């Protein structure tokens, strides 16, 4: 494996959790729900994956456990914001704080234990392709899942009728309700999908990226994923590009630090957010762009008439 391959692989590994969490949140936001609890769902996924892998001795079960944990945790958010119609921003923030605390408590017993690593799966023949084979087809299952998720979500949102309904709800939930589309049910499903993706993203951190449990090990990646959704202007393909871009930045930051290059690391870690602000400014310059690209009912609570 040469140096270039190694760098690309490192970047992809750093990007996978960002991409997964972002693609999940993208679906949630497309349905008009703003879940700021991505960081909390990720860390719950991370601790659950590590714990279950430890207890069962299977990293694969750990990954599934992380996914389920994220989904269950998101159901709490769904219940509060969709059934009890609590404020989405406040609930999302609370979810993050709760997740960070709860995961610290659960994970206390696992600090310092050597972790299990989810094995890479080499796809026969394809992984023998020169250069790209090792990069694309000899990866861990969560990486494959993230790519399948991008393609699947793209198809779902823009090709399927259910995806059209989901986008309609995100654009105008009252009209969608008047047409007989099940607003709350669809949003529950979207929130659960987002939770599952965030949970799996967290699992990637604790059983692939750095197979160990460290408190607060998500280190703000949930927030980067949230920024990424806006950066991608709610389009899955752009989320893929953005995730790899942000992944490269985070690796570049480590690289610059180790080489003592004079760029302040804080500036580099702020880069994803600066890029997101730039995208927001560009979108809002044009009202039509905003109308067509942003889910108009994002963050608004929906109370059906009875």
């Amino acid at each position, binding site marked *: 494996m040469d140096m270039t391959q190694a760098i690309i692989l490192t970047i992809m590994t750093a990007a996978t959790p960002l991409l997964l969490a972002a693609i999940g949140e993208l679906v949630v936001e497309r349905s008009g729900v703003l879940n700021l609890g991505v960081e909390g769902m990720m860390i719950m996924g991370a601790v659950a994956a590590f714990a279950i892998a430890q207890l069962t001795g299977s990293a694969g079960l750990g990954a599934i456990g992380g996914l389920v944990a994220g989904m269950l945790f998101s159901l709490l958010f769904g219940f509060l914001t969709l059934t009890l119609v609590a404020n989405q921003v406040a609930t999302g923030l609370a979810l993050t704080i709760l997740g960070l605390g709860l995961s610290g408590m659960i994970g206390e017993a696992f600090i310092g234990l050597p972790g299990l690593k989810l094995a890479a799966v080499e796809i026969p023949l394809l992984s023998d392709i020169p250069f790209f084979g090792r990069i694309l087809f000899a990866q861990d299952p969560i990486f494959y899942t993230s790519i399948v998720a991008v393609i699947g979500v793209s198809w779902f949102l823009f090709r399927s009728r259910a995806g059209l309904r989901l986008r309609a709800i995100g654009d*105008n939930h009252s009209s969608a*309700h008047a*047409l007989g589309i099940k607003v709350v049910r669809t949003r529950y499903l979207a929130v659960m999908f987002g939770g599952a993706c965030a949970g799996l993203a967290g699992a990637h951190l604790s059983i692939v990226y750095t197979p160990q449990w460290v408190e607060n090990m998500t280190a703000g990646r949930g927030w980067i994923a949230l920024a990424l959704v806006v950066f991608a202007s709610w389009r899955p393909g752009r989320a893929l590009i953005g995730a790899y871009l942000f992944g490269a930045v985070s690796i570049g930051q480590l690289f610059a630090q180790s080489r003592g290059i004079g760029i302040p690391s804080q500036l580099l870690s702020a880069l994803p957010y600066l890029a997101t602000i730039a995208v927001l400014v560009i979108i809002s310059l044009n009202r039509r762009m905003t109308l067509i690209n942003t889910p108009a009912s994002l963050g608004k609570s929906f109370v059906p008439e009875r």
Partner: protein
Amino acid sequence: MENHEIEIPLLETRRLTKIFGSLKACDGIDLAIAPGEVHALLGENGAGKSTLVKMLFGVLEPSGGEILWKGRPVKIGSPAQARATGVGMVFQHFSLFEALTVAENIALALDGNVPIEKISDEARRLSVDYGLPLDPSAHVADLSVGERQRIEIVRALLQNPELIILDEPTSVLTPQEADKLFETLAKLKAEGRSVLYISHRLEEVQRICDRATVLRHGKVTGACDPRQETPSSLARMMVGGEVAAISGAGLGEPGEVLVEVSKLSAPARSPFAVALKDVNLTVRAGEVIAIAGVAGNGQSELFDVLSGEVTVSHADQIRIGGVAAGRLGITARRLMGCSFVPEERHGHAAVPTMNLSGNLVLSRYASDRKTFLSGGWLGLINTGPVATATKRISTDMDVRKSLVDPLAGSLSGGNLQKFIVGRELDRQPRVLIVNQPTWGVDAGAASRIRQALVDLARSGSAVVVISQDLDEVFEIASRVAVINEGRLSVPEPVATMTRERIGLLMGGFHDGAGHPQPEALHAH
């Protein structure tokens, strides 16, 4: 008449009731719609029309009574069920998704999984058949209000409904667009479909409807053949008393010039806004100038520069009482004796989440500082005088509310509009500028608001009314101007103005043929 009795109605409701908390929104409604009939549903805002049609379309569940379809009792539990039964609906506030294309919007209302391409073709065919041109691949965000309504109609037609419900369809259309719609309705009727037509425009109802059911306070107050009635007898059934006839003709000789707009041009502030082009307007004390025009031709832009929400490049382009005011903001203009009522009630004219007294202080804290505020720079609100003023305004304008000082957003559109107009009139302003004073307001409230505007002019103030409603324009104006693509025609006395001429001016015909004008209209 005999026929109606024998024939089984397409749709019938018996004692249909809907209760919200302690309010009976619909109270034992009996309604029968015959096949191939255009049936009008008349009533003021809050009379229960919307609640009734929402039950017919399965959006709301009835609290009591039954719905019969072709003589058989049915349960319409969801819009999908309504569509399957054969009921199509065109909503008043369009239920369209701006971020989606026309075809996607249509697909959403259809059940099953018909490919988008097929829906596009079908929609294109239908839109041509019914004279409602549409491009299925366009984004709704880019379409005009009239085009948006066509989507709704085509969407309803695609399901081949036997009954089509239209909720206030012409409130957003030009007279010409409305005529086209009536042609479409005639075609639907000829095909044997029934139409339930909800409107508060009596003239229209008389023109196109075979029968009418009138609602008031959730109850049926009359069923009639609208052609046998006069507008005032219909209005009486709607509001339960004579609607006062209003006339601006009785206004006296106009006095001094209070507002003078000269050579005012303003660039469009966004791709969706309209640029104002060389606007000239003189408004005198004691007159009502109406500015007619189709929505989106620069009305809100004109209102914004008149109110000071947007300032203009040269101060003397707008003079108020002789003082150059073009660079002054809205509060400064209020202090000069002006009052303004913008079009959008929620969020512009009033804050829906604040109560009425709070909304009163927000618009008059500067002009009525002495009354409403105390404590010098602290600006403490004097709750007593504010409450008194709120009560006075509510009484003067007959604002109906359940609490003493409710949230603005909890009032019906008509009642909130009465409060907003009353709030400004209560100051006895020298100049009042109003944008669409009675949009979406029921007949009783509209009549009250119009009378108040005429009374203000009679007491010697200058009034500018920007309105799309031609009936209103003819009722209250002393002079009429028309705005089209940001250009304002020269105001003409209402006595010499005709609907045809306004229609031509709205369409941009500024030749003035047959109407000798002192100045060539925007020759450059």
